[in-house]
């Protein structure tokens, strides 16, 4: 975000100058501008429009037609139990999974950065490998690993049913954690590498040990990177779709409205596109509000 701020601090006299190279600027910006308009802005506008329509029929068997219905669909969204259950489910998921995942990522990044660890290159690669596995494939793999018969750990999976209604949410949380810990670890690790070494020298001269250095210097200095990973994770959690959708094949406990995006998909398949559009708009807004609020909250803490 700071880039935008920095860029707008240009000297005021530049504004008055005539724009040079108009043609070239047009050439450079038009392709992206057109595509962004067609496949980002237009769909968003169209979804909002569709969410304001309702389907009416003349009598029971009449032909359906769409008419403008103001916020009828949004009233239906508010009353829709399964949708809000799914929202509650991913919020619970996020409250537990995001801190666990980022805590692990931070721990690994600090260990990679500490002089106490040998074989850094190997660990860095090994932990990052799962990020190359698409969510669908990771979910298929773990689905088999959790299943009572196929798992290499049948001793565990036959006594604890990870695919039961009580545990399946956390089985999915494990898949997401497995895929993304290494990715988040690398973000935090590259922030750690950017800290000048002299700071540590001073702390060491003052007699600070590695743990103290990590706690008092490293973690505060990589806080922006952690905030970034947290925002991406919150967005990702609300959008959860592939992993639970795959788990439907392994566990009957995963309903077709298990997560908000699955609800959108299921509602669209009915088909009830107007309600699905309203779900989509509400979900996009919720995502934006949550990540924005989190950003503001952490900024205020940092200012204090």
């Amino acid at each position: 975000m700071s880039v935008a701020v920095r860029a707008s601090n240009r000297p005021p006299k530049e504004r008055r100058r005539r724009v040079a190279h108009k043609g070239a600027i047009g050439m450079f910006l038009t392709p992206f501008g057109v595509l962004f308009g067609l496949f980002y802005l237009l769909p968003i506008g169209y979804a909002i429009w569709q969410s304001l329509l309702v389907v009416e029929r003349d009598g029971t068997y009449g032909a359906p037609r769409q008419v403008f219905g103001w916020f009828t669909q949004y009233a239906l969204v508010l009353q829709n139990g399964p949708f809000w259950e799914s929202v509650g489910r991913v919020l619970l998921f996020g409250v537990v999974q995001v801190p666990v995942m980022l805590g692990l990522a931070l721990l690994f990044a600090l260990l990679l950065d500490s002089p106490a660890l040998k074989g850094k290159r190997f660990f860095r690669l090994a932990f990052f490998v799962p990020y190359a596995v698409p969510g669908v494939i990771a979910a298929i793999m773990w689905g088999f690993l959790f299943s009572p018969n196929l798992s290499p750990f049948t001793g565990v999976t036959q006594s604890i049913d990870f695919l039961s209604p009580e545990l399946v949410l956390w089985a999915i949380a494990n898949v997401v954690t497995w895929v993304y810990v290494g990715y988040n670890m690398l973000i935090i690790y590259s922030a750690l590498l950017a800290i000048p070494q002299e700071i540590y020298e001073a702390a060491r001269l003052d007699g600070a040990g590695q743990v103290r250095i990590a706690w008092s210097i490293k973690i505060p200095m990589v806080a922006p990177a952690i905030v970034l990973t947290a925002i991406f994770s919150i967005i990702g959690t609300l959008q959860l779709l592939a992993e639970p959708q795959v788990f439907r094949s392994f566990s009957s406990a995963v309903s077709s409205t298990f997560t908000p995006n699955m609800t959108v998909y299921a509602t669209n398949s009915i088909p009830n596109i107007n309600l699905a559009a309203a779900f989509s708009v509400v979900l996009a807004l919720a995502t934006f509000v949550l990540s924005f609020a989190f950003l503001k909250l952490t900024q205020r803490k940092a200012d204090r």
Partner: protein
Amino acid sequence: MSLLTRTAGATADDATASGRKGPRESLLSRSAALIVMGVFTLYFLLPIWWLFIASTKDRGQLLTTPSLWFADFKLFENIGALASYGDGIYFRWLLNSLGYAGLGALLATVVASMAGYALAKYRFPGRELFFNVVLGGVLVPATALALPLFLLFSQVNLTNTYWAVLLPSIVSPFGVYLSRIYAAASVPDELIEASRLDGAGEVRTFFTVSVRLMTPALITVFLFQFVAIWNNFFLPLIMLRSEEFFPVTYGLYAWNTQLNQIPELRTYVLVGSLLSIIPLIITFLLLQRFWRNGLGSGSVK
């Protein structure tokens, strides 16, 4: 230049870490660190090892032999069976994925780098507005767009075509963001000026001079977009009906849902999963330098 220098530091970190001065760490903390990392290495790699082992077994031995070690090595027989099942539809899916992700990421990189370059190197009214709208686009997750795109594409009867998955994949707001930062830092104005004096046009200057200086950023944008398209599940799920258009993830998902009816699909799902992640893992490991590039720049403050 900050991106480049940071990477140079990152690749050399193993050397500097061991060469750091200061007190030697105690045996206790060294072994504790090693044990923690060792245990989690098992956690991260064991599932992939299991998938590999499972892919080498035939259907009977999959259930009856220890699942973390080899039985009769049937990997190539399994791949052969996979290739012939359903007229080789699996390899068509793999090609589709390569097409969607490869072509989509390539076009996305070209389009985004041009826009990012223009935003970095030219001054014009509305520049910041344009950039801020694009930045807002970075925050809109791809899945939030899947349904709106579906509604729009069904208006023009383009659902269930290659276009339905390819076209939306060409837009990368993150690519514009990264290209802008990178172009501002790595393409000197003097160089553009010199190229102008030599009589080259603006567009030609971009494609012959500036693009070369921006290469590390362009590879990063390409990689991120490639993975984003390869992993995107909602868009194909909602857009596609005929399996000839499926990307490999959707195809394997579809097979996986039929396991109860057609049990022999299990082997194909496992072998297919393995084959589909090997190219990606190799690419990742080879190009990881560029990953850290992009990851580092995401948190530039």
